[in-house]
């Protein structure tokens, strides 16, 4: 079944090539891009069925030599963690294309170019999660920036140049430092084995026994890259700018997918390769994680711009994910991975809904909206659902993961866990307050009333607005997400089954076992 993985890597690239020739005809470009992304989704489902939980650590592996002089191979394969991330990419891209169907691009830009970049981004991101060679991972980690740079810089809002360059430089610097660490690991391997290699599995066996000082340095190199990518406070400042300036579909990709490379990297690279350093430096990461939860939540509460609000919400959520990863219990680990999936779905949905709001009002300022549920009840309902899953209401998908993270972390890290729990309360505050300000009460706000119709409308308390409710296309985009949110809220087991063995293997590589209370809790 390795052909599924190969196809997953190739199909979006072919799609991008085809779409890039359709720059003259926007409708055709959109249809073709959507078709390719749906094929990718089907392949994603096939990949899910091909993966055997409890089987090999890395499945569907294949590879060819690339640079033999440095033992670099083009090798790919997936574990349960990579699988869920690839699946969620395949799920979100068609929805992003569907949601942006009528979006206006900046003057002189074509849908063909935009969608081609989106498809390239999809291919490269899938490849990042599937790479099993550290060098290849680094290469893709940096190459991933290029389409995103052009997506933000070419199709974004007013300050897009600034946001694009900031995004690129932050990630590029992080990546370079990671490269230094990767070369360090390579040098250790060539000392030990006589021949250098970048193969992930081999490097793990070489580096994990290195002395603590070396491990600490190498750990820090990788950690910086992942902390910028994830992003953890204080390396997060690129995200609000990128999220605010990017077009809405691209915001979904940045916040919903790209950021996961950071936390994925922690699980795949930091923990297995540098177990000693991971344990020694866990307090540092945990502090950053909890600060991220609280800081992100507080700043989200205070945002006036919806897209920046989304960025800070994500920063808070990434704090939870990092907390779960560095608590070193299987429950918390499983919680974190499922959080990565559920964050993509919940936040992805929230971003899409907010994109629909912005598409109606033309403004991303919260204060430009008010009482919208009167004119767009379905839209309001969708905002409420996506908001509630963002704040982890029981019965939604996020609750399962947040709960697992917290009960999994408590036995080993009670203090941090209690502090992080405050974040849950703040989440209720920022989500419900957002909903209250935008959807409830009398109809108000410049964005809504600017669209008011009829002469003499100004000053009339009963002004009407032309803003309408969700249309069929938008319902079709959101409906699958609602179904998934509820389905995973009540039946998370299929996902947890896929994740658990891989998380277990990761923790075994770190050499930690669950404390007694957690084992009994099972």
């Amino acid at each position, binding site marked *: 079944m390795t052909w599924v993985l190969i196809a997953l890597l190739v199909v979006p690239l072919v799609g991008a090539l085809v779409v890039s020739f359709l720059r003259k005809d926007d409708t055709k470009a959109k249809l073709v891009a959507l078709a390719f992304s749906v094929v990718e989704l089907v392949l994603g489902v096939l990949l899910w069925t091909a993966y055997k939980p409890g089987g090999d650590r890395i499945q569907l592996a294949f590879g060819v030599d690339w*640079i*033999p*002089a*440095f033992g670099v191979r083009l090798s790919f394969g997936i574990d349960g963690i990579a699988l869920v991330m690839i699946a969620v990419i395949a799920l979100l891209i068609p929805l992003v294309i569907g949601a942006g169907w009528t979006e206006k691009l900046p003057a*002189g830009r074509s849908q063909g170019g935009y969608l081609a970049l989106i498809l390239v981004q999809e291919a490269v991101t899938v490849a990042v999660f599937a790479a099993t060679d550290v060098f290849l991972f*680094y*290469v*893709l980690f*940096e*190459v991933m920036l*290029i389409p995103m*740079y*052009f997506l933000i*810089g*070419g199709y974004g809002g007013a300050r*897009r*140049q600034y946001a*694009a*360059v900031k995004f*690129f*430089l932050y990630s*590029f*610097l992080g990546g*370079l*430092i990671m*490269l*230094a660490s990767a*070369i*360090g690991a*390579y*040098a250790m391997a*060539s000392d030990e084995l006589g021949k250098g290699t970048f193969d992930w599995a081999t490097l793990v066996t070489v580096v994990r026994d290195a002395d603590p000082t070396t491990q600490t340095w190498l750990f820090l190199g990788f950690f910086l890259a992942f902390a910028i990518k994830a992003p953890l406070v204080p390396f997060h400042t690129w995200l609000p700018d990128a999220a605010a300036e990017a077009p809405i579909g691209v915001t979904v990709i940045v916040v919903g997918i790209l950021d996961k490379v950071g936390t994925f990297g922690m699980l795949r690279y930091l923990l297995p390769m540098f177990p000693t350093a991971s344990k020694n430096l866990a307090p540092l990461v945990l502090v950053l994680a909890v600060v991220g939860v609280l800081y992100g939540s507080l700043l989200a509460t205070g945002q006036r711009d919806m897209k920046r609000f989304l960025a800070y919400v994500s920063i808070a959520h990434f704090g939870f994910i990092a907390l779960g990863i560095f608590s070193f219990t299987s429950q918390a680990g499983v919680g974190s991975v499922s959080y990565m999936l559920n964050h993509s779905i919940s936040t992805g949905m929230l971003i899409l809904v907010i994109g629909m709001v912005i598409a109606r009002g033309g403004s991303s300022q919260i204060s430009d909206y008010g009482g919208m549920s009167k004119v767009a009840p379905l839209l309001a309902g969708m905002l409420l659902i996506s908001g509630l899953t963002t704040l982890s209401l029981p019965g939604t998908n996020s609750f399962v993961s947040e709960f697992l993270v917290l009960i999994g972390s408590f036995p080993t890290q009670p203090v941090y866990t209690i502090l992080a729990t405050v974040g849950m309360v703040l989440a209720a505050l920022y989500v419900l307050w957002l909903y209250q300000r935008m959807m409830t009460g009398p109809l108000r706000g410049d964005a809504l009333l600017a669209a008011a119709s009829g002469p003499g409308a100004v000053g009339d308390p009963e002004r009407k607005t032309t803003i309408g409710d969700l249309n069929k296309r938008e319902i079709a985009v959101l409906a699958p997400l609602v179904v998934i949110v509820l389905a995973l809220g009540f039946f998370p087991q299929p996902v947890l089954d896929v994740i658990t063995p891989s998380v277990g293997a990761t923790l075994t590589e770190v050499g930690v076992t669950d404390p007694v209370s957690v084992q009994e809790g099972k």
Partner: protein
Amino acid sequence: MNLLVAQAQQIEAPEIDYGAIAPVLIVLGAACISVLLEALLPKHQRWAVQLVLSLLTLVGATGALILYATSERRPAQGVATLAGAIAVDSPSLFLWATLLVLAFGSVLLIADRSVEPGGVFVAQAAIRPGTVQDRAQATKTGMQTEVFPLTLFALGGMMTFVASNDLLTMFIALEVLSLPLYLLCGLARRRRLLSQEAAVKYFLLGAFASAFFLYGVALLYGYAGSVKLSSIAAAAAGTDRSDTLLFAGFGLLVVGLLFKAAVGPFHAWTPDVYQGAPTPVTAFMAACTKVAAFGGILRVLTVAFENTQWEWRGVLYGVAVVSMVIGAVLGLTQTDVKRMIAYSSVAHAGFLLIGSIALVPNGTGVSATMFYLLAYGFTTIAAFGIVSLVRNSDGEATHLSQWAGLAKRSPIVAGVFTFLLLALAGIPLTSGFIGKFVVFSAAIEAGLTPLVVIALVASAVAAFFYLRVIVLMYFSDPAPDGPTVSVPGAFTTIAITLGAVVTLVLGLWPTFVLDWAGTGTFLS
């Protein structure tokens, strides 16, 4: 008379391995023929004949090189010929091949007459700028075809330079490569004062650097009693001599070399000269001079000073840091695309120096640096080729603000230039990345990890100014009176394509060149 004959018979004629030095002989011989043609041919025939001769020379020299490199009788460790003055070993052959191929691209750029009618070189260099005759000649289509022999002489000097086995030969080669370059810099058709200023600056500072070099040679001769690189190494292995002479000589020698390589803080000439010189000459200097200078640095450091490396490594460590910081930080403030690439080349010189001092434990630094030189040379030639295409009525539009929105007007040129900038920034899937990777790997293995971290930060800083150009080209609106992009003629197209394709291919499949660069070591 008899006495003279008797003395002459005592002088042994040195053995000459003609096969080994054939590439250099072909280039220098063709340069002499080229000078004669300049004297004998009527003006209207010169350009075509000179161009054909130059290209044939390069192809012939490359052919001779391939023939020799693949021949059975070539000793694997290399051969010293001309009484030990020239060492033809694997690195020499690699660097020669690099120089020849890069020169091929440069000559194509130099020969182009479609972008600027009549070529970028002045019709008659002797006419004073700003006079009536000068305005008249600006519209003429002829050009000073002496650029071709000058280029060949410079190339011959470079090839000798990287293969010189003693310091005196090296000095002469240095002058042979420098003097034509000084002249070439001053031959621009447009903005002649700027061009002549560049030539004078380059000449004066270059003369200083040569003096430093020569003084260093003198001190080292005083120390070792010989100018042969291997004798200096042998003398340094003994302990009974004055280290002052050795290290004073080393310092002066290296200053001369670093100047040619445009390593900061000896880079002061670089931005002015890169900006003022005709763009094809800038491309030739940026690519080939860099290769020659670092080829020389590698040989001197490896052959003559390897056993004393623990004494001098710290100094060059500092120089590398200074060079990277100067290049990256001052590059940020540039508003002229040629000056920006000049500062970028200073930063790259810092990276190259890292590879050059990574001599332990197994000398991978040498092959890594040579790969970097090859990769960087191709990228630079193509980049300057693109720069020469973006023009307004005053000639090249090199101010960055004029590049705004270029992607809207000519997406292909903007796309290729973006790719080249990403290569200079060291983004994966370009040769620039592989070059950085091999150099940094060698440095980490040599225990230079802190230096590598500084280099990585400098790379990230430098990436900003490359990105700024991309931002300008893609995300800004074009200025209404902005420059146009000339449709390049066949020569420029070939040169740019060659550079861009090599940049891509070496980014994807570097194995062949990496293996080749790593085949042998310097003859000592």
